[in-house]
């Protein structure tokens, strides 16, 4: 669902429907009763490919320990303006 212009779509929930057209309508009824969205995408659950939850340690290992990728790693410039 896109909650308003300028915001990306985010996942809001699941539902059952016999086909894609009805899925969009059901999603409107179920998830936008209070103007929560201006655009809806639906995706069949079996069309989603995911990372393996059991392998998450190894899979996401690369960024670990690389805190020099964050601005907060660089402390010597503290107090210097506009940096």
């Amino acid at each position, binding site marked *: 669902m896109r909650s308003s212009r300028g915001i990306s779509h985010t996942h809001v929930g699941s539902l059952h429907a016999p086909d894609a057209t009805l899925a969009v309508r059901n999603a409107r*009824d*179920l998830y936008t*009763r209070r103007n929560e969205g201006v655009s809806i995408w639906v995706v069949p659950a079996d069309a989603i490919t995911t990372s393996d939850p059991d392998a998450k340690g190894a899979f996401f290992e690369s960024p670990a320990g690389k805190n020099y990728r964050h601005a907060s790693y660089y402390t010597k410039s503290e107090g210097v303006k506009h940096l």
Partner: protein
Amino acid sequence: MTIPPVPYAIDPDNAATVSAEEQQFNDLIAADSRIEPRDWMPDGYRKTLIRQISQHAHSEIIGMQPEGNWITRAPSLKRKAILLAKVQDEAGHGLYLYSAAQTLGISRDLMTEQLIAGKARYSSIFNYPSPTWADMGAIGWLVDGAAICNQVPLCRASYGPYGRAMVRICKEESFHQRQGFEILLELMNGTPAQREMAQDSVNRWYWPALQMFGPPDDDSPNSAQSMAWNIKRFSNDDLRQRFVGMLVPQAEVLGVTLPDPDLRWNEEKGAYDMGEIDWTEFHEVLAGRGPANARRLQRRRDAHDEGQWVREAAAAYAAKQAVKAVA
């Protein structure tokens, strides 16, 4: 009073036999983090959640009936629109919760079957009739009010999909309680007959609403384990006490009397003392012998049967379109 032993998530004497995945589950719970659908979890945790979430979903679905009953007879177009919106919300709540339960491996069809076969439980409160318009007020104020009190802490439940469903539900609930309060307030500002109708309704719903928090702590065997798993955050009695504390000043604004002669402020404990709750009645209603159990289930069964042709037609249409798309 006997307090059941607290089952610890981690048994220090048994540490060696804890598998790596179980250790990870325990660590996540200890850190007050969230468990997600594809994480390993103990069988008991899964079963407890399936039971609790599906019962909760069934309660939302059956809970549409006492109010749905009044949609065609609401006293004005405005009230009709409000009531319709509220009942529609409850349908939505049921669907959010069925989706959350499905992530634990139970199918929607099985849950529906369990409900219409009378094998599943739902909140005992919905087995009371709603004979007057004032009941729409008392249900919103007391029943949705108690539900909110119960549900706000569930937004932090350790199972991710459940907590997320509860966040969505809680956002929608406060309108339910306020519209009920307003119905009562309008009646209390009306004729003597209207005031009497409002008071009578509060008299009938007050005690069943207090029972919604479940049996007293010393008679609630599963509570300790649910608390250890961070599913439940406060005990039944604590939540009930908190609810009564909020109701008393609201009842004063309304000008209604809460039907408990023993209700009085206890300076020492800084909370209200209240009278005995009739737990025999609670267990009777839960066992299916309440004033409207049979009617509620029959209505649900009929609705399911009457919707059969719609489900079949939608599936047939979808199948036909799929064939066309391939051709």
